[in-house]
């Protein structure tokens, strides 16, 4: 469950550089990244602010293109895709979860979840059916008609996760998904992601500041100044406390089970 060698590769990055701006405003956000993530693997990306975590996620998700190097998703080199093809990749193969849940405020929970399918031109009844199942999966099947404004932050993030899953993407990308949540709802969200990996075989790449969140992953990749400075493969998750105990130099969480 924890080694990448034995399974198919979901994404592969080789010598990836990303440069923003020119001359005086030039920033090298990524300075040579090599990374393979296997299908069904849960990878946490950590690192100080500005180390290039989000940039990395954007490149993998086809939201931005690398300055040099190759980014392959499901064996497909993104550099060879035009804008419309990248759009199709995002539509069919990638699910995004953002720190700011980014729900559409005028749409109900189920409409938000169904949005990627509606965008894909899938009939409303069919889209709603699938969205209903995705809502069940995140434990919100009973509140399909609530608007985002009527829900708590944790619930909104779960809706965002349901939305990211609804098109059954090969890859789920989450950028600080617990960043706006309190520790209780944050933990719920993390357990949900873990369950998706364990039960649905979902591949997840998650950016996080929080060591406790990272501890739920199969592998932790640490970035600094656009480079990978450390990779750490974690033992299979049994319980949160086990994982925490196995990590060095981390503060014990106050509310661990």
């Amino acid at each position, binding site marked *: 469950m924890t080694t990448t060698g034995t399974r198919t590769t979901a994404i592969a990055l080789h010598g990836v550089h990303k440069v923003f701006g020119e001359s005086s405003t030039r920033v090298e956000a990524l300075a040579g990244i090599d990374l393979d993530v296997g299908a069904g693997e849960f990878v946490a990306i950590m690192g100080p602010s500005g180390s290039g975590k*989000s940039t990395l996620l*954007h490149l993998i*998700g086809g*939201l*931005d293109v690398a300055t040099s190097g190759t980014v392959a998703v499901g064996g497909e080199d993104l550099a060879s895709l035009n*804008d*419309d093809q990248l*759009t*199709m990749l*995002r*539509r*069919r193969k990638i699910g*995004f979860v*953002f720190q*700011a849940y*980014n729900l*559409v*405020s*005028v*749409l109900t929970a189920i*409409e938000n979840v169904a*949005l*990627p399918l*509606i*965008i*894909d031109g899938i009939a*409303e009844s069919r889209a709603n059916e699938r969205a209903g199942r995705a809502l069940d999966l995140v434990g919100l099947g009973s509140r399909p008609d609530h608007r985002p404004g009527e829900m708590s932050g944790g619930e909104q993030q779960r809706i965002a996760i349901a*939305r990211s899953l609804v*098109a059954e993407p090969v890859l789920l990308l989450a950028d600080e998904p617990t960043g706006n949540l309190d520790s209780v709802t944050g933990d719920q969200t993390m357990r949900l992601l873990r369950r998706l990996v364990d039960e649905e075989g979902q591949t997840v790449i998650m950016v996080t500041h929080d060591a406790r969140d990272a501890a739920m992953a199969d592998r932790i990749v640490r970035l600094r100044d656009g480079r990978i400075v450390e990779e750490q493969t974690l033992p299979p998750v049994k319980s949160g406390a086990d994982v925490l105990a196995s990590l060095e130099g981390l503060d014990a969480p106050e509310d661990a089970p």
Partner: protein
Amino acid sequence: MKWSYSLRELRRRPLRSGLTLTGITIGVAAMLSIAITIETTRRAYGDMYTTLAGRAALEVVAIGDGGFDAALVDQLSGTDGVAVAAPVVQMPAVMIGPKGRLVVMVIGIDPERDTAVRDLKLRAGKALAPGGAVVLLDAAFAAANGIGVGDDAPVITRTGGVRLTVCGLMEPGPISAFNAGAVVVMPLSTAKKRFGLGDQINSVQLVLEDDDRANAIRQAVQTSLPDGLSVRPPAARADLVRDTLLSTEQALQSFSIMSLVAGAFIILNTFLMNLAERRRQLALIRALGGTGKQVQWWLLREALLLGLTGTAIGIPLGWLMSFGMLGSMQTLMGVKLSAPVPGVMPFVAAAILGPVMALAATWVPARRAGREPPLNGLTAAAGTDAIESVRRWPLVVGVICITLMAGICVILVGEHLPQRSNEKILPAGMALLMIGGILVMPYLLMPVLRMVVWGLGPFMGFEGRMAARHLDRRRVRTALTAGVLFVAIVISIGFGNQIRSNLRDMDTWYERTFVGD
């Protein structure tokens, strides 16, 4: 994506959507009511002259609606195929009735020749005697104003007042159709003498021996006429008096176009506000796999919804407004205008125009929003604080528009073109000037804004400086807002001026026609 989603987006910002809707509604309503007013007025003039002309198949009038020498009547009587040539003078006047002042049209006819042209059936009293100081009134008009046979009828024109006597009351007929019955019919000779008209008349109506030969006779008559006079079917006289109508029609048409342009800029302005606020949402759609085209269409659909709604409100509103406008026209022109008589075309035009205006105003920004890379709207830094870049093309296009307008002015002032084409060019020119002005505005606005900030700097305080900086940042929108204000001012000044000059025109027309010998 579902249309109901668009509707919800619009409902989320009710004030702004309402403002946009108002812009479209006003544009459509103005355009429609003005088209109806112009059409109805023209038709009313045509009908009026046709009725007035009775059995006359042709009439001779001065191009430009002026007067001409009565000596021509005899020449016309002698023309082959012409049975009777009946001279007519007309002039606006005021009659003092028992209930107060009445705005009337004096019509002077030759009582003998005129019987061949039209039948004046009398309800009471007796017919006009040549040379008598007597008048005929429309029976209904007289009754409504408490005037009877034998009463005094003081009539006042520019050249003085005369005391005449009502000798008879007419049944509804050709003359009472004119000016809603507010007519004072008197012998031509009396009118000429009492009002000091000399030998000037306004028209000669020709009853033909054979109406089937009207075309041939018309040609024969036309060749014999001096310059400046024209022979044509009575209804066509509406075209000639358009000289009087011309400036009003121009004013109305310019107003119509300006309302449309103003409406479009209001739409654009609020649309840009929406876009700025919805960057994140649009980026999200793109991140979730929406194509740029989908985003563009999604946005345009909202504009289209507003366009359709605005049109749906604007058409009935325009129809209602046309009643009011026709009322003003009636007062302005002194012509009875009944209910609006619209053709189908103004409605079709209005129905197309509303949605097209909404789409045209939002097309470019919607396309640009669709093409924006999703990341720009998603990252935390993507607030709405980025300084809007001001491009060069609006300046170029704006200067071209203004230059074109300047060219048009030169042509108009130089009178190189026939009058008829002026009236088509002028409204287009107004639109050009306005669009040009709005496009150039940002380039003038920003230096002016900076000068104001610099001048007021010490007194503005922190908040003032923030506000100024904010305006500077939202250049496009600031310019647009200034543009809408500019349009409003241009409309008020322009429209007011047009009406004033129109009234002046009427004076000139009046003087030229009736006063000057």
